[in-house]
């Protein structure tokens, strides 16, 4: 099964950094995606874009937004210098999200229901201190380049 069967994606660019949002079509699939589509696997799948750069490039960070069924990946140094310098045909890396949806996530997945978040549940009361964000998604950082 390809990731494309369960999720949609959009890519963006800022300088030499690509960002890819992967969004589950169904809320019940989000825990599965969270387990399967790790920063490491994204880094491996898109290695052709991430390898061979300078120090600090090739790093992939993941942010989780369970209430939106979304995973955000930030890929440092993935754009061959960025839209203004890249020799690539796709200077913005707009195709990267679609390529990520080509990731093989295997077959035989049982729908995980027990911890599936409801998409867009009622928002909680706005937390008070704006200086300490309440959002607790893990920030997975991989400084090592393969």
């Amino acid at each position, binding site marked *: 099964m*390809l990731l*494309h069967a369960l999720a*949609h994606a*959009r890519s*963006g*660019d*800022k*300088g*030499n*950094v690509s*960002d890819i*949002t992967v*969004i589950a*079509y169904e809320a019940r699939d989000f825990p599965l995606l969270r387990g399967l589509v790790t920063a490491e696997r994204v880094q491996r*799948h*898109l290695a*052709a*874009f991430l390898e061979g750069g300078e120090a600090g490039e090739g790093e992939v*960070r993941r*942010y989780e*937004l369970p*209430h*939106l*069924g*979304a995973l*955000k990946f*930030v890929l440092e140094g993935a754009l*061959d*210098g*960025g*839209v*203004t*310098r890249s*020799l*690539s*045909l*796709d200077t913005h890396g707009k*195709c990267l999200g679609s*390529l990520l949806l*080509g990731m*093989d996530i295997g077959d035989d997945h049982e729908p995980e229901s027990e911890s599936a978040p409801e*998409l*867009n*549940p*009622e*928002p*909680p009361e*706005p*937390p008070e201190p*704006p*200086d300490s*964000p*309440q*959002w607790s*998604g893990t*920030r997975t950082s991989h400084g090592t380049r393969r």
Partner: protein
Amino acid sequence: MVTLQASASERGALRIGSGAGFADDRIEPAVQLVESGDIQYLVFECLAERSVALAELERRRDPARGYNPWLADRMTAVLPECARRGIRVITNMGAANPRAAGALVAELARARGLRGLSVAVVTGDDVLDRILERPDLPLLEREGTVGSLGDRVVSAHAYLGCEGITHALSQGADVVITGRVADPSLYIAPLVHEFGWDTSDWDLIAKGACAGHLMECGAQVMGGYFADPGHKDVPGLADLGFPIAEVHPDGTFTISKLPGSGGLVTPATCTEQLLYEVHDPSAYPSADVVADFSEVRLDESGHDTVLVRGARGRRRPDDLKVSVGYRDGFTGEGQISYAGPNALPRARLALDVLRARIEKQGIASGAARYELIGVDAVSRGIGPGTGSACDLRPGLGTAGPDRLNEVRVRVAARTDTEDGARRIAHEVSAMWLNGPAGGGGVVTSVTERIAIASVFLPRSDVTPSVTFAEV
């Protein structure tokens, strides 16, 4: 001026339409919003990261130019009806020359008898002189300083916040033309002006930034750049419209579309746009606020209507981001296609020949790409159909590269000089008579590269100012 549409205070909400999401966006959807969208503001966001540097080069060639090339077309299409209905227009189409853009809009207004229309111009984003005085300023996200770019620097523009635009609106501007302004600020400004928001109420400003972020890419929030047939179908893509934000004084808002226009507004379309080009969702900085989108809720509140709540904010950054444009050599490029039996081996032979000829002459000063469009140009060989493991899985990839019926050779190389780039392109042209059999459809280009580096400049070094063009 007679106002035909209800004001924000009369209806308890402000309706803002997106007139454009990028420099070359379609024009007709903006006209539809003006005529049927019941909007009070129309915002055209038309400046990508590099656009202003390219516009600056154009301004140097012709001091009367350097603004968005569609400015006259867009204003001609919407201005008379906006004036009649009292819809105010905000745009960054001034690019590198907001004053000339303002003068042009004033001239267009005069020619259409729109006397009394107030056209404001916001300047102060051009900080080239200040940047050049500070060669020690470090570049962001890379090695080096402004000084290390030497005499190649051509432009420096700060991302202004909303204050210049709100000042212009408070002075009665019907049209506000800016150069570089942080994209969400184009939408925050009318909210601050109409609702009297305190610009240091960070949660409130973040809600405005959230609305601006969802709206700033035009159709992208309502089915543009979204369709994937059989997976994500978009009705009426050919007649895709642009979105409307209806914002309440407490910062909650809906995104919706004109009934009858193509596209769709759903939590899925809004999720793609909400997180687009956001890195850490809990800290999205722009000139007016550091927004936290991590707890934003998107709820379908009606047909093609999504209610957006939950953005929060923290104090705006002390420094403003500045994009520094600099000359970065040239690129020479050429493409040629091969088709029919054995197309792929002929294309690979063409690449080998091109690489040998270019390397022998030593004309590529830096990086070069030798690739096959249809095989590995944008995919770099990732995925089925390119000889990867996926091809062995039934049903995933049945068109292996050896069976390709057509393929396109592409060579692109960086050079120090324009002449070098010409010679790269020339080598591809030469494949007409000097390459494998059956090559066709040669296209070549020579491009000067204008690259962008970013620096921070203290906010106190940047002073927005507002002038009015005579109508």
